[in-house]
C-alpha cells in the first residue's frame, strides 16, 4: 500500500515521495503505523506517542478524502487504500497560528 508522510518526516526518514508498505490484513490505521515504524524506526514517536500510541495532537490521518483522525485506530481502512489505488495520508495539521 501507499503512504504519504509530511515533508519533515520524509527528510527524517530520508525518503522521497510516497512510502510503500506491506501491511497484513486487516489493514487499519494502527497496522499502517506499526508497519511504517518498523520500516523506519526513526519515525517512532513522531506520529504517535511512544507509550500511549495516541496520535500526536497536530497530526491528522486522511483516506479517500475522509478525515479518519478521530476514528478508533482499529477501524478498517477503505478498500482503495488497501489495494493501493489511493494513498493513506499522514498530514501535519495547519496549526501555525
Amino acid at each position, binding site marked *: 500500500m501507499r503512504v504519504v508522510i*509530511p*515533508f*519533515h*518526516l520524509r527528510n*527524517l526518514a530520508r525518503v522521497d515521495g510516497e512510502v510503500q508498505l506491506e501491511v497484513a490484513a486487516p489493514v487499519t490505521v494502527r497496522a499502517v503505523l506499526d508497519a511504517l*515504524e*518498523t*520500516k*523506519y*524506526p*526513526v*519515525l*517512532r*514517536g*513522531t*506520529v504517535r506517542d*511512544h*507509550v500511549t500510541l495516541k496520535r*500526536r495532537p*497536530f*497530526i491528522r490521518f486522511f483516506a479517500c478524502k475522509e478525515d479518519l483522525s478521530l476514528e478508533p485506530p482499529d477501524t478498517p481502512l477503505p478498500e482503495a487504500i488497501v489495494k493501493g489505488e489511493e494513498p493513506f495520508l499522514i498530514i*501535519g*495539521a495547519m*496549526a501555525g497560528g
Partner: protein
Amino acid sequence: MSKVRVLVGTKKGAFILTSDGKRKNWEVSGPHFAGWEIYHVKGSSVDPNRIYASQTSGWFGQIIQRSDDGGKTWTPPGSNPEDLKSPEGFPKGESNKFVYEGAVGTHKWYDGTQHPWEFKRIWHLEPSLTDPDSVYAGAEDAAIFKTTDGGKTWKELPGLRAAKGNLWQPGAGGMAVHTILLDKNNPNRIFVAISAAGAFRTEDGGKTWKPINKGLKSQFELPDPDAEVGHCVHRIAMHPSRPNILFMQKHWDVMRTDNSGDLWTDIGGNLPTDFGFPIDVHAHEPNTIYVVPIKSDSEHYPLDGKLRVYRSRSGGNEWEALTKGLPQKDCYVNVLRDAMCVDSLEPCGIYFGTTGGQVYGSANGGDSWEPIVRDLPAVLSVEVQSLA
C-alpha cells in the same frame, strides 16, 4: 593552528560557524535540520567530532541527532534499522523516547492544583567530561535524563523530581531543566537549574538531589523568604577550576555562591538592571564574568535600545559595559539563557546569539565585538568548541 567551531541552535535549524584561531573570518554552514526548532547543540570535550543536537517540533515531537564527524553529517542515534534489531529482530528506535520513571507524579499548576508531568522537549544536552557516549539531557517538563550508549536510549534520573517536585511550577516559558553543570574533579557532583523551581545539586551521580536556593529572594512570586524551591533561576555558570563557586542569573538578581550553592549572595552591584538570561565565566580568569542586562521581565530587550554586555573582573558587584561593535541605538533583541559561551583560546573568545538572528563574537575577552552572522532565525543556543 587552532580553530573554533560555534554551534548555533535557532528556531528554524542549526548552523555551524567555523574560523581559525584569529576568529576574524568565518564560514557558515546550515541550516541543518531546516525548519525544526534546535534548542541546543553541544560537542563532547572528549571527542570533539562527536556532537549532539536537540531537534524539536510542535507537530512531530522530539528528535535527538548525533554527528560523529564534526557536524558534516548527522543521524538520529540508533535509527538505522540494522543497528536497532533486537535479538528477536524487532526495531527499538528509542533515541527520542523520553519516558519519566515510575509513577509520573504531579507538579504545581498555575491555578495551584497539581498537574501531571508531560514530556515536551529537550532544552539542554550536556556531554560527559569523560565518555563521548554519555550525555545528560535537561527536559521540559523538568527532569534530567542520561544516555550511556551515544543517544540510542535515555533513562531518567528520577531523584531530581523527588526534590520537592510537587512544589515546582512552570513559568511563562515552561518548566524545564535548562542548565546542567558537571564538576570535572568529582563525577558524582552535578548542578542543575530549573525554571521555575531553582537550583539543585547531587553528590551521588544523580541518585539524590538537594535544592540549593538559600539566599535567593523572589518576594512577589514567593512570599515565603525561606522557600526552598520555586525560584526562577535563568542560568548558572561555573569555572572548571573552581567548582564550588557558581554564578547565577536569576529572573531578577545576579547572584554568587562560594560554597556550592549552600548560600547565595547578590552581586548585581552597579548593573543598570539585574534582569537577564545568560551568564558565563571567562575561560582563563575565573573571577571574570559576563551578563547581558535586559530591561525587565515585562520588556525583554536591552535598556535604552543599547545592546551591552557587562563584564565584572572582580567576581561581581563592579561591572563595566562592553559596547564596542555592538548596536547602541534602536536594538530590541533578547539574548536567551543558553545563547552565550566562551572558547578556551588565548585571548578568550566570547560569543552570543540574539532573538534577532545575530551571532556576535569577541576575540579579546569582550573588549570589542563583531557580528559573525546577522540574519539567522531567532537564536536559541550558542556553544563553541576550541579545536587543536
